[in-house]
């Protein structure tokens, strides 16, 4: 592969990066090849040393997605970005990814059902208020009974909110753990490629 072929191949594969980032990387690789050749290395040996443009591009793309997801604070965006990072790492290291798939799916389902339960509880609480108003005449022990029912429903709504906050934190933690694993994966694959 010649220098121009290498750079053009790399350029095509970096389409998911921003123009600035892509040009930055291409500039660096170009300088590296040029300077190494000026120092006496052959074009072929330098380019071979740089490794396959495909895996370099996959690693860079995956790294970018991981960085974005890690720095994102909103849970919804973080989830979306983490999924994107997972796809990128899948392209890079399919076997490692499959190894991870089982546990991630299990935990994902658990968290999802936790959210579903909380939403249901929240809905029931609101329904409770509705019922309280509609059937207020049917509640025994007149004012105290109403107060007790109201307190109970508000209490369960409160618990739902508190548990959702906890669940939100747990989801974030889980995503960060997943991102750390993905990061490790990217670094591990890079080491294997460059020896």
């Amino acid at each position: 592969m010649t220098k121009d072929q290498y750079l053009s191949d790399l350029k095509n594969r970096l389409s998911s990066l921003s123009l600035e980032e892509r040009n930055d990387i291409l500039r660096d690789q170009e300088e590296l090849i040029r300077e190494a050749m000026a120092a006496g290395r052959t074009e072929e040996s330098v380019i071979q040393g740089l490794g396959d443009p495909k895996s370099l591009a996959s690693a860079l793309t995956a790294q970018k997605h991981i960085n974005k997801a890690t720095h994102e604070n909103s849970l919804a965006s973080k989830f979306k970005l983490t999924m994107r990072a997972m796809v990128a790492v899948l392209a890079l290291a399919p076997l490692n990814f499959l190894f991870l798939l089982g546990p991630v799916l299990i935990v994902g389902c658990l968290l999802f059902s936790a959210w579903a339960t909380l939403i249901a509880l929240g809905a029931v609480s609101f329904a409770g208020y509705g019922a309280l108003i509609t059937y207020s005449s049917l509640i025994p022990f007149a004012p105290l009974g109403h107060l007790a029912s109201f307190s109970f429903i508000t209490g369960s709504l409160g618990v739902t909110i508190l548990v959702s906050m906890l669940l939100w934190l747990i989801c974030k933690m889980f995503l960060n753990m997943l991102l750390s694993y993905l990061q490790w994966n990217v670094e591990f694959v890079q080491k294997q490629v460059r020896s």
Partner: protein
Amino acid sequence: MNSQFHKGVIEMCILALINEGDRYGYELVDAISKNLPISEGTVYPILRRLTQEGYCETYLKESSEGPPRKYYRMTSVGKSQTQELVGQWSSFVKSVDQILKIKNTTKEKKNDQRPISI
């Protein structure tokens, strides 16, 4: 060289070299690979990351040998990070040397113990 040692150490070396004076990419590759066997592709990604994290900043300088070169220069955050890392390295090396020394003195002591003949 053991790759476990590699990872943090290369980054520290790069920071220390830039701290000494502004450098461009390949200059660092050259300086490090003279002493440590590294793959050429290792240095540039580290430089990108260090710049992203704010430890260094870049500027372009015209070069007589071709297109302008991107030079890396320390920021104040970078300077303190460099001092921190080099300090950690020095105490680490000292501690390990201590342990290796102890191992050697224990060996010598054992050799000196001879059975007393009656």
